[in-house]
């Protein structure tokens, strides 16, 4: 039983991170109908920026939590500026181009960012300095560290804040209007350029937070880390229904749980026929099943309107 609870905790922590990154994909898709494949690299830049600041301050005598917060505060504006720039340079000029063109520039931006990060931060892995308390709690025989508790709570708080922003504020209303139909929203007096920029700013800020979470939890950052994370988060967004905010959160948490439980039990369930290396196969199998029965994802809206 304690193993089962531990696997649920593992899945929740992983899922919270996926969910935060997935929000960035889904927001941009919801508004522009574009898959921003460079989003994973924004997470990576956020993690490495924060880590650079944290390393500088690690010996300053400040409490570890404060240092990490400062790192986070440094990473957020960097990532926001980056997201804004990416949209201006790579997506805005192509807004009326065929769908495929911005997809290609997105992949291009992703490669460029990765290589720039490699030149700037080098090829080596960067370790997260051990400044955060390594304490934790035991729940029914399972162990969860304080960092992991903070990750889950922070992710929940951010998602709740985002839902409030989208559903209760003027900006949110303008975003929803733009998502529904950019031309009409423009005619109604919404400055869609500002709304789209705001979307990228918010998504990138979330990416920065996710980046810091990943590197704090796994104590590792690397110029290549954004790729797999981005891919998984994209999968989570599709699972939940891309373009739908609660869907991205649900998809992220579900994917985390599926991976964790899959890796933990698939071997025993199949009598050793399939091992834990099938955890990704298992996750994608669930994705396919969901898409067969609900082509627009678990909480997705009708696709016909967008197409």
């Amino acid at each position: 039983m304690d193993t089962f609870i531990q696997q649920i905790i593992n899945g929740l922590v992983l899922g919270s991170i996926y969910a935060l990154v997935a929000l960035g994909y889904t927001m941009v898709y919801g508004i522009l109908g574009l898959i921003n494949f460079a989003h994973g690299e924004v997470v990576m830049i956020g993690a490495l920026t924060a880590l650079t600041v944290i390393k500088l301050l690690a010996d300053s005598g400040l409490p570890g939590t404060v240092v990490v917060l400062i790192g986070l505060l440094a990473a957020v504006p960097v990532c926001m500026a980056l997201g804004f720039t990416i949209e201006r340079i790579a997506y805005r000029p192509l807004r009326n181009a065929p769908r495929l063109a911005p997809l290609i520039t997105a992949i291009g931006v992703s490669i460029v960012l990765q290589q720039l990060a490699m030149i700037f931060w080098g090829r080596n892995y960067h370790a997260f300095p051990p400044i955060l308390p390594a304490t934790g709690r035991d729940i029914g025989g399972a162990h969860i560290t304080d960092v992991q508790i903070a990750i889950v709570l922070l992710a929940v708080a951010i998602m709740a804040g985002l839902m409030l922003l989208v559903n209760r504020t003027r900006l949110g209303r303008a975003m929803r209007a733009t998502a529904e139909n950019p031309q009409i929203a423009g005619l109604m007096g919404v400055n869609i350029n500002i709304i789209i920029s705001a979307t990228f700013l918010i998504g990138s800020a979330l990416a920065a937070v996710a980046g810091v979470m990943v590197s704090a939890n796994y104590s590792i950052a690397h110029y290549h880390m954004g790729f797999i994370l981005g891919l998984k988060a994209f999968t989570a967004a599709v699972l939940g229904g891309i373009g739908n905010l609660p869907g991205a959160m649900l998809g992220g948490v579900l994917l985390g749980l599926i991976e964790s439980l899959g890796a933990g039990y698939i071997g025993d369930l199949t009598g050793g026929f399939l091992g834990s290396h099938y955890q990704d196969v298992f996750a994608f199998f669930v994705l396919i099943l969901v898409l067969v029965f609900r082509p627009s994802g678990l909480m997705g809206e009708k696709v016909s309107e967008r197409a």
Partner: protein
Amino acid sequence: MRFPVKTISLAVASAFIVFGCGKEAPPPPKAEQPAAPPAKPTVTVKIGHSSPLTGPQAHLGKDNENGARLAIEEANAKKLEIGGAMVTFELLGEDDQADPKQGTTVAQKLIDAKVNGVVGHLNSGTTIPASKLYADAGIPQISPSATNPKYTQQGFKTAYRVMANDEQQGKVLGDYATKQLAGKKIAIVDDRTAYGQGVADEFEKAAKAGGGAIVAREFTNDKATDFAAILTKIKSKKPDLIMYGGMDAQAGPMAQQLKKLGVKSRMIFADGGCTTEFHKLAGDAGEGHYCSLPGLPLEKMPGGKAFIDKYKATFNLDIQLYAPYAYDAASVMIDAMKRANSVEPAKYLAELPKTAFDGVTAKIAFDERGDVKDAAITLYQAKGGKWEALESIGGAPAPAQPAAMEGVSGMSGMGAAPAPAAPAASTEKK
């Protein structure tokens, strides 16, 4: 934050300074263009090198390339004359991304570029498929670090390596785990690469033979950072030891996550995790884990000390892992060209089996398969953020036999230490 262009030009400059004063060779330090004496023709010999220069193993890939580059720059500084021509060596460093598909693409590219020999690849997964292409093209290949046994068992005349293979290493690890560490219940994780799986399988055989029970066999991949799920499962089996077949980028975070889950079992892994990078990534959580490296500790290698200084002076970087082996691989190749008095692949290939070369890592001689003879393996334990050598096991013939393990010896009697030059002249590769 580094500026590669500057570093490289500095490195080149300092390389010449080092060779100028550190070598007994008469030619004084000279500038870049080796103005050939008018009478003799000059030949440029291309040596291919392939390793992952991007992706999660880029740090190891660059390390290998630097090792090979050092050997080549050194040979150029000596102004060798082979077959009546002044020879300048040129290194063509390619990026195979540790990806088997990319490995064959790179191999074809090097063959098309008409390289005279190849040092590489780094990973077993790329080396094995590429070796077929090199064999078909008749280009000698010396891998510094591909340790999967299959590489030299395919019957290619062109395939060589300068490092002990996984059969030997897995056996030593498995034996050590069950005998010296008295492991009864053992969990095994591997990263499903040719290397990781290979060494884990060999370990499993040896551990079972030694009386250990394998309580869990789990898998991850060479890009993963999250191991919580498989480690949780392993925790429930309460193993004495956890063996990991894979690289440092996973071994480090895995050690951390073990600690976070409150697992006290020690890890044991092979050369891929046996790096300085492991300590950086694992931090405190790295303490007490075990690993093995083919060969001797760098400081105990015949030319280790000098090599460390030379490498540092040239590249202003610390050695990651396999650079000395890449250096030796390139040096062995150049040595064979010298003895054959030809840079033609077909001609100097015949000289490779007769190699008896005083390398940095060991005295290098090849057996009939192309594996290095008398390969030593050293076991380490992490103490105070460093790998501390426990003991070296050596003297085993390359195709490891069950009897190979008998030669357990203390630090003093390592097999690959300055042993008398093996009478290697007769062994012709099949």
